[in-house]
């Protein structure tokens, strides 16, 4: 049996009954990493010794018939913007390259409590700012389907690791599409949960009102399993939602059941605006649902077009403030010989932040400045409310909305770096979801002419992740796209 072909859930079930050892699964993952990591560069750090020790202890636990967690013995990777007491928490920035967190993020605590084996921390765009992982201050990650291409971003490392089977599941974070778009580019499943469903405590903040942690997995059931571990109220995160207000579901329960009389909303202009290959596959996917008995309803989202403008004001405003703490005074990079304390700030920040981070800090600082606040930040907040309204109205007519994740498949490394605005525009389908705070999933729905994966995005009302995953599973049951693997030996790496 090829151990690596198992899903996270299948592996968990086998480890739990002792038919597979976590040690073997972990060994398999590390031999995969040794084989492919030089080609993909998905990880900023890996913890082979610690992971094997943990795997061994879980095997012993299971052998002793002790109660084990939901992810017992399963090798998992987390994006390197989630704090861990082991290894650095770099955010792919020179600023935090050698930063070691004194505490674990809540999601990391939850993974550990579920007996997961954390095997490494994945690369990202510096401080999660970007859509290609080209903005990593530490390394470039390559798309496993074509290593001349970007893996997407900012959770590019997590998605590439998942696609290369260098882990059984991964965590990413999504501020404007950072889980869904790399999942789409790498042909894996990515779920951005409702804002407030998963704790942000210990997630290094980029745009606090938009950031949300979610799973990147090989199929929808695994995303549900991961949600069963990470979802829920956290007393350390005031913006996480009280489970008394909105209970957390068992996301796996009923996942195999189709939804009768499903009403799917589509905005034809959105689909038409994508590249032809993307458009065709999205239309095929919608046909697949139609054939399964779903009703397709045309809806309008008039304020959607303003989402990029609103997002790049709100996210950068928050980022300019969130990143103010990296100053060379307390931790992180400090310049060598500052003349005075002002230089501690200016030189440390200038030396350690990359161009995109600086660009966004400056944009955000400008948007919040006195005299501009009303015209930019405040107006963006109003637009955000209108976009929320778009979704509220849409969900009066349909159960979910379907559209592409990205207008294109993975683009070539360096292709868009010269034009940041063009890069921003590629986030058109994902950003509104973050502004509205609703959940959305990206799932593989085919390939373009160059055999690059295409992702279908399904968006649901707030806190309806369970239903959203069932809807996604309907497609997965009828298609095999999620089972296809990149051929890493014939890969056209330069």
């Amino acid at each position, binding site marked *: 049996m090829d151990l690596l072909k198992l899903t996270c859930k299948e592996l968990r079930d086998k480890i739990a009954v002792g038919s597979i050892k976590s040690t073997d699964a972990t060994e398999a993952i590390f031999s995969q990493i040794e084989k492919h990591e030089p080609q993909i560069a998905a990880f900023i750090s890996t913890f082979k010794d610690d992971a094997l020790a943990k795997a061994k202890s879980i095997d012993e636990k299971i052998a002793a018939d002790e109660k084990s967690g939901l992810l017992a013995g399963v090798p998992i990777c987390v994006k390197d913007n989630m704090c861990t007491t082991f290894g650095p928490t770099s955010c792919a920035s020179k600023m935090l390259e050698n930063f070691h967190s004194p*505490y674990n993020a809540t999601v990391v605590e939850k993974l550990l409590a579920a007996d997961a084996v954390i095997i490494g921390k994945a690369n990202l765009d510096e401080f999660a700012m970007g859509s290609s992982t080209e903005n990593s201050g530490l390394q470039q990650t390559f798309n496993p389907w074509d290593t001349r291409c970007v893996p997407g971003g900012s959770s590019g490392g997590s998605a590439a690791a998942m696609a290369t089977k260098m882990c059984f599941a991964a965590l990413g974070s999504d501020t404007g599409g950072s889980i869904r778009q790399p999942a789409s580019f790498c042909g894996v499943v990515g779920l951005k949960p409702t804002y407030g469903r998963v704790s942000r*405590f210990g997630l290094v903040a980029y745009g606090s009102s938009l950031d949300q942690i979610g799973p990147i997995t090989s199929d929808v059931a695994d995303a549900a399993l991961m949600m069963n571990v990470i979802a829920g109220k956290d007393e350390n995160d005031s913006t996480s939602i009280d489970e008394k207000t909105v209970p957390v579901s068992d996301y796996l329960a009923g996942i195999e059941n189709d939804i009768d009389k499903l009403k799917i909303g589509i905005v034809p202009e959105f689909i038409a605006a994508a590249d032809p290959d993307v458009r065709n596959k999205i239309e095929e996917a919608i046909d697949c649902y139609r054939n399964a008995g779903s009703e397709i309803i045309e809806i309008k989202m008039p304020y959607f077009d303003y989402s990029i403008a609103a997002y790049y004001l709100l996210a950068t405003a928050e980022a300019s403030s969130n990143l103010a703490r990296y100053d060379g005074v307390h931790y992180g990079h400090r310049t060598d010989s500052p003349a005075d304390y002002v230089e*501690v700030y200016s030189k440390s920040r200038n030396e350690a932040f990359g161009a995109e981070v600086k660009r966004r800090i400056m944009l955000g600082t400008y948007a919040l400045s006195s005299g501009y606040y009303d015209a930019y930040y405040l107006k963006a907040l109003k637009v955000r409310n209108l976009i929320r309204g778009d979704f509220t109205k849409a969900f009066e007519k349909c159960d979910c909305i379907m559209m592409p994740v990205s207008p294109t498949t993975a683009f070539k490394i360096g292709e868009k770096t010269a034009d940041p605005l063009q890069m921003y525009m590629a986030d058109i389908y994902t950003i509104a979801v973050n502004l509205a705070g609703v959940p959305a999933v990206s799932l593989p729905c085919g390939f373009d002419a160059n055999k690059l994966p295409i992702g279908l995005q399904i968006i649901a009302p707030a806190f309806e992740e369970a239903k959203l995953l069932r809807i996604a599973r309907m497609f997965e049951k009828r298609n095999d796209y999620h089972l296809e693997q990149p051929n890493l030996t014939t890969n056209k790496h330069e």
Partner: protein
Amino acid sequence: MTNLDYKIIVGLEIHVQLATKTKMFCGCALSFGEDANSRVCPVCIGMPGALPVMNKQAVEFSLLAGLALNCEIPSFTKWDRKSYYYPDLPKNYQISQYDLPLNGTGFIEIPLEDGTSKRIRITRAHLEEDAGKNIHAGDAFSRVDLNRAGTPLLEIVTEPDLSSGTEVRALAIELQRIVRYLGISEADMQKGHMRFEPNINLAITKDGTEYRTPITEVKNLNSFRALQRSVEYEARRQLDEFIDTGKTMVMGNKSTYGWDDNRNVTVLQREKEEAHDYRYFPDPDLVPVEVDEKWLSKIKSRLCELPLQKQKRFVEQFGLSDYDAGVLTADKATAEFFDETVKAGAEAKRVCNLLTQIGLKLANEKNCSVAELGILPKALAKLCVMASEGQISASAAQTILVEMSGGENEPEKIAEEKNLLQKNDTGELEKIVDEVLANNPDAIAEVKAGGKKSKKASGFLMGQIIKATKGSANPQMAAKILSQKLGQ
């Protein structure tokens, strides 16, 4: 000679450190004097990924202050980030409140020296977190101690309604009394629990035209004395400057001064401080605070009679002098101790005298409040009743009170042991009077003769009686018996 008249105009910003169990947004205990950076956690030192969680007690304390300061309390308030770079500010933004403070406009009544009071308008009172401290120890670098970072501060801003150093001081003391009454701050000046920043200028009338001098702000004053003196000094300095230069206020311009406590002068720190751009925006890590009626009424129920109300009541209800009432209400425990003693049947003025003449001295010596001397209000009331009924003299009452502060709460027992009970036994007194009369026939004759000598002689006889009883005779009773015996 020009005709020149001026008024001082002062508004105050006051930071009050709240006596909560933990810091404003994390679980660290509040700190004073501990080793540097020993009371910190990822949240209050701004580690990556750490998130603030609002301290509900701090909000309730602030609302309680708002109620006591007659503030309008909006039902919706929120947290904002105030951005500026400084090494003692770990996140390089302070979580504060910008346009929607917990407490809106209100007022505080301050007592004036003439026994009246003045109403000073409050602009707002909001909650925020304190910064840490930079330590400049003379090395090539400075150090930062973040123990104080995240401590809850209530910032109270007044309108420029104060018009003298004395008034400014009175407000500061009144506010200290209020927050201590409410139990929301220790308001210990030595520990920096109250910090003041007066904004001062003058309205000068010269030849019938009014001029305003430039506003100055004196930073970070932490004693009442420095506060009063800095205001008085600034007023003189500004007047001199105006006479010398004729400079007047320009809107939006404010110079910042420090206070040199050794030289008793203000020192210019920054001239014409340009309006700082703090880039306020709502903190996305915190949720807005909604203050509903139910919550507010629960907080309202913790409101007590405020010091100035109490002081006025003591004057009106008990006929105490404003000064004495002020002394008794300086701290809540003493005021309540007084109230309870009176309630237990004592005569208010007598309690007041005993407490102000003896009790406070004792408390001072023991460095505690009167209420902590170990004396029960009931026992003190008993003592007062004994004195009022003439069982003991006023001076004996004082002696007994001193004894009682040792923990003995039975004044009768002390009086007996110390032989301080006045002789009220008529039979025994009569015998003594008889003896005195028998030994002083001349004096009797003088009394009976009447005239000038008569008064002197009866005074002499009274003196002999008191002497014979070693002072324990009840003087009224002795006088009564004497006059009966002499047939008067």
